[in-house]
């Protein structure tokens, strides 16, 4: 199945989803990007360059680990994990970002901008900016800047300017809006490094393409090391980039069931979660450059969302996934915050791995299902990132009292230092 063959339909559309909804002033810029991307995609040397960069800089291929303890504990399917957490900067975000970096170089631009919510994508983009020598500006909701200081710290140390966006809910979607505003002003020398497989065409296709490296590797690794394809594969879905990355490797394997795991937050009900498809609180809309499912009210204004995982806490979703969901090729499930922290604890204790809270959504769903499957079956989870960088969030999610005392003591030390 070639999702990106538009010869029979509208370019950039997947079923009725997708499209390019951008101010006219960006028309030329986005056309240039489409062209440059199309050329790159058709040029085998480009993918080679990308592969080579990801190998030497980010340590790809990332392995598939077999979780023997967890599999035994559950007594069901054999559990495998694709280790995107082992990438440089600690998540799959780097795949997309380095790919776009190579494109930016081809386009001769010298400045990049990016939105970030949790900070993972901003962190990856700042890294890429340093590595490519670009002038880098990261837009981040003011709330997120306050919550995610560690990531801001690293971004700044890598030479990026981090701008706290004080509009709207002061979170991810507002940072995206702010990026669009910057872009309409500075499109001449600036590329907008979108962080997930959302936004106007060609971003959903482009980000999915760079992320497809995950699924390509994983499929081969399952054949080589696990003795066969998985029966089900699980990926968390924020914007949809890591899920698209993994799923693309298995789209044509009809026996492989693809499961997208959304942020169920506190459970069903508008405002309680960030699930666009598994729960029934979202509807089709057009915003942030694309037509897709959004968590919005009847007036088309976006809702507040909630998830323990900042990276899944987003109003929209990749249009390709919506299309595949309607065609029943991808199943969507929502996982609540509580289920996520339980899965995280289990992964740490039984296997010594620390999934990011985002990735723990995939773990939680896989754990639930694997237990009901046969030992001869296999499941594969995409561990999109590592959690150790998000200690504040995880310590908060687990309610760790030692941690709180440590922070209080550190604060006292700093205070004493200042006064001393």
């Amino acid at each position, binding site marked *: 199945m070639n999702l990106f063959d538009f010869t029979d339909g509208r370019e950039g559309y997947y079923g009725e989803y997708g499209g390019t909804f*951008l101010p*006219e002033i960006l028309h*030329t810029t986005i056309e240039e990007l489409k062209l440059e991307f199309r050329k790159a995609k058709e040029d085998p040397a480009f993918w080679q360059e990308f592969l080579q960069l990801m190998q030497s800089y980010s340590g790809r291929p990332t392995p598939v680990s077999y979780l023997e303890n967890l599999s035994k504990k559950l007594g069901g399917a054999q559990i495998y994990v694709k280790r995107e957490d082992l990438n440089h900067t600690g998540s799959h975000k780097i795949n997309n970002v380095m790919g776009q970096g190579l494109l930016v170089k081809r386009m001769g631009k010298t400045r990049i901008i990016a939105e970030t919510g949790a900070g993972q994508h901003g962190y990856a983009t700042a890294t890429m900016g340093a590595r490519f020598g670009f002038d880098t500006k990261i837009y981040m909701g003011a709330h997120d800047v306050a919550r995610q200081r560690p990531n801001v710290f690293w971004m700044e140390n890598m030479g990026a300017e981090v701008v706290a966006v004080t509009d*709207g809910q002061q979170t991810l979607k507002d940072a995206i809006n702010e990026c669009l505003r910057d872009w309409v002003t500075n499109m001449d020398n600036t590329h907008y490094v979108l962080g997930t497989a959302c936004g106007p065409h060609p971003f959903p296709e482009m980000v999915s393409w760079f992320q497809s490296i995950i699924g390509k590797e994983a499929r081969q690794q399952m054949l080589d090391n696990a003795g066969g394809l998985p029966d089900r594969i699980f990926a968390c879905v924020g914007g949809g980039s890591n899920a698209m990355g993994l799923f693309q490797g298995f789209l044509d394997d009809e026996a492989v069931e693809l499961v997208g795991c959304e942020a169920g937050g506190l459970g069903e009900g508008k405002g309680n979660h960030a699930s666009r498809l598994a729960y029934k609180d979202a509807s*089709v809309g*057009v915003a*942030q450059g694309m*037509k897709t499912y959004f968590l919005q009210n009847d007036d088309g*204004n*976006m809702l507040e969302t909630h998830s323990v995982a900042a990276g899944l806490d987003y109003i929209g979703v990749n249009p390709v996934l919506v299309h595949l969901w309607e065609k029943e090729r991808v199943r969507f499930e929502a996982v609540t915050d509580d289920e996520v922290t339980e899965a995280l604890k289990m992964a740490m204790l039984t296997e010594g791995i620390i999934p990011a809270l985002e990735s723990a959504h995939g773990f939680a769903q896989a754990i639930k299902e694997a237990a009901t499957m046969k030992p001869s079956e296999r499941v594969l989870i995409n561990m999109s990132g590592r959690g150790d960088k998000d200690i504040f969030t995880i310590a908060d999610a687990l309610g760790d009292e030692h941690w709180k005392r440590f922070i209080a003591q550190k604060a006292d030390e700093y205070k004493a230092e200042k006064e001393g």
Partner: protein
Amino acid sequence: MSSLKTYLTERRQDKDCLIMTHVVCGYPSFEDNWKELEIMQQFDVDMVELQFPFSEPSADGPLFVKANQAAIDSGVTVADCFEFMQKVTAHFSFKVIMMGYYNTVFKTGQEIFLQKLADAGAAGFILPDLPVDEAQELYQIGTQLDLAPIVLMTPTNTDERLAKLAESADGFIYTVARRGVTGSQTEMDNEVATFVGRCRQATDLPLAVGFGVSEKKDIDFIAKHADIAVIGTAALRAWEEGKEAALNAFFKKLLA
């Protein structure tokens, strides 16, 4: 041809420069909006954009972003905006253009939305995040209802693109004098003149020049090169600084 175009073409015969102003529905409140509109009427503005607030106003500058958000936070709905528009068109003589984002239209349903617009007396609509390539169906419905689809032309467009934009347009053309979002400052210089000239080549619709108009000399410049000056952020800023008095003073100075 839309009646908006006819209206504008006629007014233009008597005036050096037509004026379009902007109001964000329900910000700071509908009462304030009404007072603003009364002043605008006094200064004989030709058109007013009524912006339907949206939660993701990605083509707006900081002041309007804040206004959109505040309006939504204070509970302004799409229904409120239609109701208000109805009152405005019944009471004032300037033409009213709906301005907003496509999702507001899409979510209501294209046909329903435009029918309501027509019922509320609007003369056209501006949806800055809806490129013409995605807009054909909507524009057709609009034309049938005599709602002019206002198209934006920008300095980054090629001549070919300008021609294509002209094909879809009606009422007038909103020429974006510079890159950036609403409220950005623009020097009305040669570059703008050249760009407006390119637009003029592409269409015989009246040309509005937007983004950053705030002084008398901007109006003079537009009078020389185009047809309509768009007054957005500067008027809202005046209102925020000193309500009626400041807005009055602003227009007095601008249109002296």
